[in-house]
């Protein structure tokens, strides 16, 4: 199967089951560089599973995923991990910041995992923290900052490696609307400034409004809203 022309990341006919539960049943997806695509759907519809498959975290049972022309299924676990370290960034709803590291150390972590020296990594981390307006928290630990601040630190961490694709799974799910909107503004602005594609999983229309395009997942099947219109 050929991915749509110009797409950076594309998936066709994805199937994935957890035991008897079918999470994905023939889902399809594609995204272009610099594009923000919201994946919407009710709880349990399979949208997080779609994100995990696209990011190479979970292998699908069948179907194809191509990233920059390369088939993910053909990559080893180590290659997929390396891809996630260097090309992808992640923001989750909960439990993503390492509680014992300071905020700047958390942001610098992906660079350090790539072998960047500590000083250099923390310098780059501070730049991103400034952009996300959390540089004042650099020496605080995640337990000492608010939920909104923590989420901005997480966004900074996701962007510090200047990924080509940013995966955000309910990034504002634990925030109030004001904080949520601010996080979304900063996230999409920062991603656009680096021409990163954003895969945004959400069930909130308010959050999805920041996207260029919406894909709705229901019962494991996906529907591209733009195409449907």
């Amino acid at each position, binding site marked *: 199967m050929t991915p749509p022309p110009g797409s950076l990341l594309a998936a066709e006919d994805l199937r994935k089951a*957890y035991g008897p539960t079918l999470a994905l049943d023939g889902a399809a997806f594609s995204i272009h560089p610099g594009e923000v695509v919201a994946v919407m759907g009710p*709880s*349990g519809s399979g949208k*997080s*599973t779609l994100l*995990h498959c696209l*990011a190479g*975290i*979970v292998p699908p049972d069948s179907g194809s995923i191509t990233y920059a022309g390369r088939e993910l299924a053909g990559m080893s676990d180590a290659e997929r*991990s*390396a*891809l*996630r*370290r*260097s090309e*992808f*960034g*992640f923001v*989750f709803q*909960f*439990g*993503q910041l*390492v*509680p*014992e*590291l*300071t905020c700047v*150390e958390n942001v610098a*972590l*992906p660079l*350090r*995992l790539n072998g960047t020296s*500590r000083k250099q990594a923390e310098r780059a981390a501070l730049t991103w923290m400034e952009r996300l307006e959390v540089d004042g928290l650099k020496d*605080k*630990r995640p*337990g*000492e900052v608010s939920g909104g601040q923590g989420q901005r630190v997480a966004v900074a961490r*996701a962007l510090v490696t200047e990924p080509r694709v940013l995966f955000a*799974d309910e990034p504002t799910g634990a925030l109030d609307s004001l904080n949520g909107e601010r996080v979304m503004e900063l996230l999409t602005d920062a991603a656009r400034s680096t021409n990163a594609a954003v895969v945004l999983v959400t069930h909130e229309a308010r959050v999805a409004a920041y996207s260029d395009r919406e894909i709705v997942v229901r019962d494991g099947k996906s529907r591209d809203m733009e195409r449907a219109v």
Partner: protein
Amino acid sequence: MKVRQWSRDLGLGLRFAFAGGREGWFRVLLTAVGVGLGVALLLLTTAIPNALDVRHQRDEARLDYTYDQTHRPKGADTLVISDIDGSYHGADLRGRLVEPEGPRAPLAPGLSRYPAPGEMVVSPALRRLLDSGDGKLLRERLPYRVVGTIGEPGLIGSQELAYYAGAKGLASHINGWQTARIKEFGRPQASGSSSEGLDPVLFLLVLVVFVVLLMPVGVFIAAAVRFGGERRDRRLAALRLVGSDSRMTRRIAAGEALAGSLVGLVFGTVFFLLGRHLAGSAEVLGISVFPSYLNPSPALAVLVALAVPAAAVLVTLFAMRGVVIEPLGVVRTAKPARRRLWWRLLLPLGGLAMLAPMIGQGADNGDFNEYLVVGGVLLLLVGVTALLPWVVEAVVARLNSGGVAWQLAVRRLQLSSGSAARMVNGIAVAVAGAVALQMLFTGIEGDYTKATGKDVNKTQMQVQLQPGDALGPAAAKFAATKGVRKVTALGGFQVGDGSFNTEEGPKVQTSVTVADCASLRTVATLTSCHDGDTFVARGGDKEMDAQAAQLTKPGRKIFFNTTRGNVDGPDFRWSVPGGLRQVRAVADVNGNVSPGFLMTPAAVPHRMKSLISGQVYLSLDESVPDVHEYVRNTAARVDPMSDTQMWAATERSDKFTSIRTGLLVGAACVLALIGLSLLVSQLEQLRERKKLLSALVAFGTRRRTLSLSVLWQTTIPIALGLALALAVGLTLGAVLLKMVNATVGIDWASVLTMTGIGAAVVLVVTLLSLPPLVRLMRPEGLRTE
């Protein structure tokens, strides 16, 4: 009001503990199993003195007191009993030959009647052994028909190998030490109690062993009641949300811990009862007990039942001081107040101060004040648990640069140095105590180990025959025994210048050694020798040589010792013939140079032949399996009353050996227990971090990095814990050695062994936690639905 509030909050905690669904139950079970193991160990410890006491009473009740010089006439109420103890495959074998002399002969405890000659009654363990393949060689040694079983009152342990065999003509062997005529079993009133008591140094050892082994159990219980703490904190946050204040929250948390400890008490009792049942089929250090012996002292059991729940509540309240629970989630005080050193130092210093007055008391075998010893050792070891969090905090605060794995580990330790220290506290206490004890054992080992002076390279076994056992045929039987290389059979008796039947006896004595020419050559230099020859051997100790010179003059009338056991024989006089060849006595197998007469068998006057006491010295090919058992079987064939001994280069006090072995077994059990608790808390911590681990893996963290960080997280505190344990252990060891007035020296091999075992426990725990860690790192951890 306060009591009501307390009980209400504790009760609420108790209910929460059980109402938390599967997870709540899991946490209670986790705590209960941990506490239960500790409680079982405590109950077992409180039961040990009682078990040993029952064993002692049973042993006293069946005492046949063969070391009895009292002459008793044969009667309707007398029994002749002979002690023929031996061993089989390293296990002690209690054996008695019995011959009741009348219908009212005293019956040994555990017996309903005596076996007739050719029959025996055996302990259940001996019956099992004889019936099994392992007992094949023993069956050859005990050719009696089994006609009954010795009941529990006649045995001191479930695994004891014992038998009573019927015999005939035993009275002629009565000698006041092996065979006696008795009218009752049990210790005669006049001789008082047999409890020799431990000497003060051994008593000190036992006290310290108990403290050293029980301390880590206490530390373990304290750790066990905190299992699952982090998850509980989150639940408590929800309670804050609905209006409970922080004090109430802490009390509720204490109530939850109380639930675990109460179930733990039940588990502990069940574990103890199971262990008690199993104890009936186990043997440790050659000691077995019947389950009924293992009854904890009621006072101590009540103390355990009260102390454990109380400790659970107190430990939780203490632990919760450092945790701030906010209504919308748990916030740990990010930078806990710096730990203070001064009060932590007071504990070990206080311990040293308690021990100091007893320094040097061992010199005159003085008693040690048991309260000061226990208190001092306890404070020193508690000092380890108090100092360790400070040491960990102080050191990890200074650690910084390094790779990602190192950084993750160091930061985690900096954030919660307390829980890291708690994790290794038990191991550190156990190692500190064990190091101190090893030092003490090594320091005083010389006092309890004596060189026997025996050359075990030439002779490995010795068999003492009964007077009258024919030496030549016996030697031939041993020579034909599988695995025997060389036999030296030496008999002998004493001669003197006067009768042996008078109260004062002879003034001058010397020995007559009887053996064939080959064996005589092992005690003297003989140029030529034929059966029928008699020699005079000279040399050795000056006084003995002078006495021998007096009695070996040709024509001198001398008296032979004809005493048989306790019974005097008729005087037998002998005139030293002229022309006896003088030879030079050389060191015999025992290293003694003995002057006197040397006689070949044909030269011994016929009347003396039945009075010769023979010793057979055997050189063995020890590569032959069961060679010692073959020798013992031959000895039993020659004479069931012969006594077989293994030779050893050194002899160590039995009590010393059992205390040392007890420490090793106890330390192994305690370390295994602590290792288990370490594993549980490690797994629990990993489970708590499941989501974080999955997130880290999701953005590309290598699994190796995370595994390495877990390893560092364990290695750093354990290295610090072991270093502190070494410092405290060596200090305590030095003080204990000073107390018993021994030279302070460090046996680095045993110190490093104990430290190594501690480190190995941590390594094993880390390795065992790696597979679950790898499982937790799977991306499925990110799923919420």
